[in-house]
């Protein structure tokens, strides 16, 4: 059985000019795999991630035929039950650590708080666990980092701390929203290895939201390509470079390439018809 099963997900925001649908009828399943969602900013990929955790605030609305986590309907859970899901069953690593870490709380305290909230462990055990997690995300001098504030950290360290914090509860599903776009390549490799290991060894399901096509093609198992709130194409990640949809092709061609230099880069021309296409199903 799949970990997550989403059917016909819609996210709607009322605006002065009528309703705006950020996500329009997206369906997919997630097993113990690395599922990539790619698209440009505004394509609805982050909104899809947030909608799964029911993090869309009113007046925004999340609707779906169903959205099941291991058979349990997420849309019918009370807010209290959702608290047991968020951070424990499904964790989310957001784009920018600057806005995700509490600026006036020491890093150690933030990790310990999450761990104790979800497991009820003692302070000492939680401290040891937090240090262990920081080590797992390749942070040196963990004891010092535990006592530091977020502003004392670089962006890369902040993001690794976020990941450590999200993985400390050993969630079933990790939604990673551009987890490495603020990171350097060598740190990026380490972070990806950590997530890769969790998928392979612990059977975690990973939703990897990214705009980086090369990264998704090489890292994920399956890819959903989103445009204007819909899935326009799905494929095996290693076949991404053979994708058919003109939007996907346009994105691929607009990347500068080291192996194929060209004077000018192709610029994506958007076909208004893409807006009207129905969403492709990402179910397996």
């Amino acid at each position, binding site marked *: 059985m799949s970990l997550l099963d989403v059917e016909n997900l819609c996210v709607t925001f009322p605006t002065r000019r009528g309703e705006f649908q950020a996500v329009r009828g997206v369906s997919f399943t997630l097993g113990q795999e690395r599922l990539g969602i790619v698209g440009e900013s505004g394509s609805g990929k982050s909104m899809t991630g947030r909608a799964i955790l029911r993090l869309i605030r009113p007046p925004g609305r999340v609707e779906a035929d169903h959205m099941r986590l291991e058979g349990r309907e997420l849309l019918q859970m009370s807010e209290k039950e959702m608290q047991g899901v968020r951070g424990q069953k499904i964790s989310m690593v957001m784009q920018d650590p600057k806005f995700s870490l509490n600026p006036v709380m020491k890093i150690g305290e933030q990790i310990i708080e999450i761990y104790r909230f979800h497991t009820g462990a003692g302070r000492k055990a939680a401290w040891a666990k937090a240090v262990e997690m920081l080590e797992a995300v390749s942070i040196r001098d963990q004891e010092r980092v535990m006592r530091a504030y977020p502003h004392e950290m670089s962006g890369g360290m902040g993001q690794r701390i976020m990941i450590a914090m999200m993985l400390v509860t050993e969630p079933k599903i990790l939604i990673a929203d551009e987890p490495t776009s603020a990171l*350097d390549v060598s740190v990026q490799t380490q972070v990806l290895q950590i997530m890769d290991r969790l998928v392979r060894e612990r059977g975690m399901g990973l939703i990897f939201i990214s705009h980086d096509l090369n990264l998704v093609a*090489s890292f994920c198992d399956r890819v959903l390509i989103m445009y204007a709130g819909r899935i326009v194409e799905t494929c095996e990640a290693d076949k991404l470079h053979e994708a058919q949809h003109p939007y996907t092709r346009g994105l691929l061609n607009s990347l*500068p390439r080291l192996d194929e230099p060209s004077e000018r*880069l192709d*610029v994506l021309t958007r076909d208004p018809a893409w807006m009207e296409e129905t969403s492709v199903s990402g179910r397996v």
Partner: protein
Amino acid sequence: MSSLEFENLNVWFGDGPDRVDAVTGATFDVESGTSFGLVGESGSGKSTILRALVGLARNWSGRMTVGGLELRGYKRPRAFYRDVQMVFQDPYASLHPRQTVDAVLGETLKLHGFSDIDRRIKTLLDDVGLGPEFRFRYPHQISGGQRQRVAIARALAPEPSVLLLDEPTSALDVSVQAEVLNLLVDLRKERSLTYLMVSHDLAVVGHMCERVAVMQDGEIVELLGVAEMRAMEVKHPYTRHLLEASVGYNPREA
């Protein structure tokens, strides 16, 4: 002729036990009319070199020249700022949120002592591919790519010969990045500008630049031409590591 020369440049922050050496012994030069890339990870000192050049990082030693003129301290003559301009990474942060495009460009032109401001604003917008309808908009009314075009227009306003580009497209979507990179390539050709570009994206640097310096921990570990980079003919293991990582995720790599 070399447009920019850096010789044994050291830049540091703080004093005594708090001293951090951000750049140590950087030596390279950028030929006039060419494009030079500085690549490396965050904290490797690549942006600091740009900041030292324009006087934003005050503690430095060594030698820096711009068009033969030797720089001292952190104050720069007015002519320097006409000649050297910078485009910053984040167009969301580098434009004043309460000023229209017209005000941003107008102020820059006024500061540099131009009189035919109205005509120049029109030309600048045209040069960066923005229609006249953008002139009286605020930054929040235009997209990220358009904002970066405004930032480029602002940098071009005093008619510089050198543009310092600090990760000019890293905040943009790939399709928009392609547009901005094409614009930068065109502008360089039209105006024979010299670019000193900082980026962590080797593919972008490979597309834009003729020569590249790879930085690690404040030091330049390798200087190489783009042809060598494309052919993966690199000497330093760190450069190889960066190149391999730029292709995508490789699980075998540690």
